[in-house]
């Protein structure tokens, strides 16, 4: 029972209904902030935190709120949560906050957050909403990190550069210079690189899905044609 409740939620958020690759929601931060792994991870985790907080809150209050005013109430909840997280990040992760800049407050208008509130959290109990927030947030974070990795590698030949900005001085060693004396590939760091990179990721996901479908069909046919034993 438990498995059948949560497994589809997790699969939806991470893969089959991935916010960035399938729904293509929250495109603005996805494209703007994914110029490096660390930036992607930072914004991804902030969005994840907002999603979990708002999903849980909205699931708790959904019975109290009249349907006529539900959207304004959701926006209020989301805006409060984002502002609290924005201030906290500014106090404790100042440098990362400076890099992510305007995109933290803009999580308020990330369609994913209001989308999950309306489509899932308002109709489901607390625990599934929590899992949904985690899964969707994680799916979003993974795409941001993958896209950030692609662009950072192609653009400046490194991975995880400036990890110390997010994790503190000790994390400086995490930076990997993959290509030494890399001349840099500007297009990958500029907005066109973000569009092309996201396009490639969506194509990759579709290709994997198609291959799996083909394999499943073949297996089914084999099963159907083989005589029952």
């Amino acid at each position, binding site marked *: 029972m438990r498995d059948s409740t949560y497994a589809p939620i997790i699969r939806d958020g991470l893969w089959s209904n991935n916010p960035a690759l399938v729904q293509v929601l929250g495109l603005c931060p996805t494209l703007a902030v994914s110029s490096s792994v660390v930036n992607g991870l930072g914004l991804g985790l902030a969005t994840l935190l907002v999603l979990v907080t708002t999903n849980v809150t909205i699931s708790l209050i959904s019975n109290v*709120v*009249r349907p006529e005013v539900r959207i304004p*109430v959701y926006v*209020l*909840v989301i805006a409060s949560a984002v502002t609290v997280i924005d201030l906290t990040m500014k*106090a404790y992760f100042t440098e990362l906050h400076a890099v992510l800049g305007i995109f933290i407050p803009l999580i308020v208008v990330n369609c994913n957050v209001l989308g999950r509130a309306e489509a899932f959290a308002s109709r489901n109990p607390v625990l599934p909403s929590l899992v949904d927030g985690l899964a969707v947030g994680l799916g979003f974070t993974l795409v941001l990190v993958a896209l950030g990795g692609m662009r950072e590698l192609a653009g400046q030949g490194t991975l995880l550069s400036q990890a110390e900005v997010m994790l503190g001085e000790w994390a400086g060693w995490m930076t990997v210079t993959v290509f030494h004396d890399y001349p840099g590939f*500007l297009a990958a760091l500029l907005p066109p690189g973000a569009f092309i990179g996201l396009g490639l990721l969506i194509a990759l996901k579709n290709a994997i899905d198609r291959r799996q479908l083909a394999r499943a069909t073949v297996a089914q046919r084999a099963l159907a044609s083989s005589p029952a034993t």
Partner: protein
Amino acid sequence: MLPTGAMLRAALTLGLFAAVGVFLVALTHAGTRDRIAEVERQALLRNLHAVIRPEAHDNDPTADVIEVQDPLFLGAEGPVPVYRARLAGQPVAAILTPVAPDGYAGAIRLIVAVYYDGTVAGVRVLSHRETPGLGDLLEERRSPWITRFAGCSLGDPPAEQWKVKRDGGAFDQFTGATITPRSVVKAVRHTLEYVRAHRETLFAPAPAAAAAQRSE
């Protein structure tokens, strides 16, 4: 159309959530305000120490501030803070944050430290939107270009040489990017001219409040 009672309840719900939201945000603001002010001061101090050696002064320049305004020479419309570094009460350097308004992609914010004798202690870029890979050689971590200014003054190189090489001056441009360094060279020269013209005001003794704070 909703009945009045339902409408009232809806309005109350909305008001209640607004109040709770405001309360939470206010609480967080109160809880983080001091820390945010402190990390901002630390960040400012780090920037200041990028352009002047920490052991060159013994005061707290973030507390010894005056504001000046000169859109023509400092590039900013509004007031610009000037931080003063002092050693044993004697003026050492003034640190200004001028703006180079004519970068390739908008304004370039600089931090420039000028010694009492008018030579440059150091220049760094605070923020810019120049093209990655071309104009961003301004950043110290990408190229040593910006350190070229240390030790320069209005006489060295001579005033007519305060240009990039393409314009017949003494400063290198970047391959594929001339506008960016041209704009920065001009802004630094303007800053030096401003400091020369207002030397007495800029290096005037610290106000009593700052002096008292220092002796604590």
